[in-house]
């Protein structure tokens, strides 16, 4: 199987380049994930740089652009991919080296939505109570692993990564707006108004297409707009 992988070391290279790799058939097996193939390629050329950790789609470290689509290498079956497999870093973020990108901009937007519970009541002795129905509203929201596949596939985030929060941060924004225990609804909504933070979303829906956890940031963004309308009329 053939691979074409983006190589770039800003300290030594003037230009990024694509490097060809190959794995022989006897090096492959039918259960292999893309990450396994990358590890085999790293054995061939140890200078190849990529992030990885848990290897089972939980940590969100190995997001990369594979044959044009952002994916997690560890849960992408190798034989679902067309050869040559073209691998690039996730688009729209500065490259640190090879497939490793600087996620700071992404985390900055995540922090901006205050991704934690804001509740000004005296802390309960045991726990904040929620009914099963209230808890169900968080399904499809809390599962985000912050891999960055969605935001870096969003054209609006490419054009305005410093001003538009991006699908991942907006999904988390709705996760706390939808939480029955949170008391900062007005403050959160006020923080999202203006033409950039939320309203750069043009429902392109690349985020939904690529999310490795099957989440739907576009729907969450729609719910935020709905709540804004309800609160303002």
């Amino acid at each position, binding site marked *: 199987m053939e691979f074409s992988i983006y190589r770039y070391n800003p300290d030594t290279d003037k230009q990024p380049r694509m490097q060809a790799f190959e794995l022989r058939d006897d090096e492959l097996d039918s259960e292999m994930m893309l990450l396994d193939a990358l590890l085999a390629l790293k054995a061939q050329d140890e200078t190849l740089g990529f992030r990885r950790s848990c290897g089972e789609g939980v940590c969100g470290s190995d997001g990369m652009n594979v044959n044009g689509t952002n994916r997690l290498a560890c849960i992408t079956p190798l034989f679902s991919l067309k050869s040559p497999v073209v691998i690039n870093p996730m688009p729209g973020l500065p490259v640190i080296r090879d497939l490793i990108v600087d996620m700071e901009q992404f985390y900055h937007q995540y922090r901006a939505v205050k991704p934690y519970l804001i509740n000004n009541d005296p802390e309960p002795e045991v726990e904040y109570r929620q009914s099963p129905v209230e808890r169900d509203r968080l399904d499809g929201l809390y599962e985000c692993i912050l891999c960055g596949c969605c935001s870096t596939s969003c054209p*609006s985030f490419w*054009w305005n990564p410093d001003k538009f929060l991006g699908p991942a941060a907006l999904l988390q924004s709705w996760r706390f707006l939808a939480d029955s225990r949170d008391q900062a609804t007005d403050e959160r909504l006020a923080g*999202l*108004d203006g*033409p950039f933070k*939320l*309203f*750069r979303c043009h429902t392109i829906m690349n985020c939904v297409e690529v999310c490795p956890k099957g989440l739907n940031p576009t729907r969450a963004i729609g719910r935020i*707009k709905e709540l804004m309308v309800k609160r*303002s009329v």
Partner: protein
Amino acid sequence: MSRPTHGLGDWLLQRLTAVYLACFFVYLLLHFLMQPQHTFQEWHDWVTRPVMLIATAIFILAVLVHGWVGMRDVVLDYVHAIGRRITVLSLIALTLIGCSLWALRMLVQVSG
């Protein structure tokens, strides 16, 4: 350009004007299919009915608002240098306002 607190207002206006424009276009299409007008006089009588005059004036204003929010969105996405952005937005605003005033003037003239 965009007041910091008007993201929602602009977004809502764009949707509301879209609904009006869609309804008006469907009405025009059905009207011309079902009651084709063959002479200038027939068209003039139809277009100068007060209801039509008001509906057309609203249509022109809806195009103005809808066009402004849409074009502004494109500029905010793609034009980043602040000087260039202000220039492009000003040109778009002038063009849209100019065209709308021209269309409204025609409407006033035809209603005679």
